[in-house]
């Protein structure tokens, strides 16, 4: 079984002076979260789409989904956790309680603030997670990446040809992800920025999925303007 996991747990601290978390802001005619959710809804591979949101936004999220998604039987709303990975674990807990976990349980996790994800990316994620156990959507880095250990001086300039920028979806066999996560030390957990890294630090393969430049993450007010421009002037 394949589950969509839409991560709407962020509280938008990078978004500047707005009142709402960024996933609840509107582009075009709908909240960003709804645009993203619809992409998953339109793909029949997903048994259920689990939306994880901040506790204080649970009721608002339920209202929005009631308003915009007439058939809600495939959508489940759950509270997010303290970190991104705790949030993903909450979705695994729900699946385990409702369906049980087996080796074929696939999670396609995605930022709620990346509404431009395409059908092809979702399909590739499902395929590679089934085949390799884990995959991560990326685009080749266009800027040179520099590393600075102290924040003042460059410690390394990695070869750009080997650098990619991570996007989402990130997809995994749920059972494996849970086992690996539970096996992490607190120090290891502290350096996690995303779920793919759980596989990487445990020496597991994570296959690359080709992302798109336009699969932007709406993080800053600037991104919101870009997203509006991308869909401007259409029906």
């Amino acid at each position, binding site marked *: 079984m394949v589950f969509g996991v839409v991560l709407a747990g962020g509280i938008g601290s990078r978004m500047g002076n707005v009142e709402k978390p960024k996933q609840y802001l509107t582009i075009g005619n709908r909240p960003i979260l709804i645009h993203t959710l619809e*992409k998953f809804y339109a793909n029949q591979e997903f048994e259920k789409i689990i939306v994880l949101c901040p506790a204080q936004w649970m009721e608002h999220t339920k209202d929005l989904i009631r308003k915009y998604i007439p058939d809600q039987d495939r959508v489940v709303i759950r509270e997010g956790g303290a970190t991104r990975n705790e949030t993903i674990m909450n979705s695994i807990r729900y699946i385990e309680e409702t369906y049980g976990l087996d080796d074929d349980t696939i999670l396609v996790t995605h930022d709620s603030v990346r509404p431009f994800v395409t059908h092809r990316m979702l399909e590739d994620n499902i395929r590679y997670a089934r085949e390799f156990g884990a995959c991560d959507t990326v685009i080749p880095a266009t800027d040179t990446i520099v590393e600075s250990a102290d924040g003042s001086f460059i410690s390394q300039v990695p070869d750009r040809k080997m650098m990619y920028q991570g996007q989402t979806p990130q997809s995994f066999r749920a059972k494996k992800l849970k086992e690996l996560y539970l096996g992490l030390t607190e120090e290891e957990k502290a350096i996690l920025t995303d779920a793919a890294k759980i596989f990487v630090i445990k020496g597991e393969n994570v296959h690359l999925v*080709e992302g798109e430049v336009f699969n932007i993450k709406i993080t800053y007010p600037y991104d919101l303007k870009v997203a509006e421009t991308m*869909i401007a002037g259409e029906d």
Partner: protein
Amino acid sequence: MLNTIYRLVAPRRFEVAFNEIDLFGEKVIVRPTHLSICHADQRYYQGARPAEILAQKLPMALIHEAIGKVVRDPRGEFHTGESVVMIPNTPTEQDDVIGENYLRTSRFRASGFDGFMQDTVAMDRDLLVRLPDGIDPSVAAFTELVSVSAHALRRFDRFAHKRRNVVGIWGDGNLGYITATLFRAMYPETRLYIFGAAFEKLADFSFADRTYMVQDVPADLMVDHAIECVGGQFSQRAIDQIIDHINPEGTISLLGVSEYAIPINTRMVLEKGLRLFGSSRSGRDDFLATVELYRSNPEILAYLRKIVGAQVEIRSIQDMTRAFELDIQKNIGKTIMLWEK
């Protein structure tokens, strides 16, 4: 839902664009799976239309021959995952006399508005026709072109007098081949002659009674009716030859599109009392008739399989360009885009 569209913005250049479609409205949401490239798409792609037409029509998503799978039907008449062919002609009014494909108010995909190079398409349910189970999707992809032939032959049946001993089809390209295939199935008793310019192409018309190279047609050879599938710069020569070799009161069915104004020998049209009629595009009834023909005469599908050319997996904009460039190089056949985008 935010929908991704791949539009031609200038000759040989596709770019991505987005629109919003209502996932939960009245329309049926379809995910395109197999797209077939047509000459009309190529004329836009290569910039072979007049500059003012290009300026008026682009940016626009190309492709009007496509099948897909139903993503969602709010009424549940189509099942999720069901294979359907999408009808590009989109009527905006009903008329009891004039066919929907001839109404000036009708809109046509990849001509008046975006074609099928999209992530998902929101379609009126009347513009979808179910495909038979197990049909080869790469053949089904160009059902629209087959329906244009079916439409022309249905008009032939209406307009042509009853003596149909010999019918000639001029043109050995895709349209000629498809029209001949359908004609053979619909009129098994009529002697079918094919007139073409390429020996190898003519050899593919194995089901025809005779084939002729256009420069070797015997002077006394006559047909009762003729169907012109040549188009382009050779339209005139084909029509001239038809007028020479057609019996009095025959019909000439014109299907070949030309960018040029084609002169016609009206003196002989008058003397022989000929009837010329044009056919273009198709409507829902023609699609239904085509799919019914697929069911009743499955050999049609086997013949059509022969003209499936390159099948190009599309995962990026570069792949789209590659498919169109490959299509330019082909001699005959239909280039199919396997839509994985």
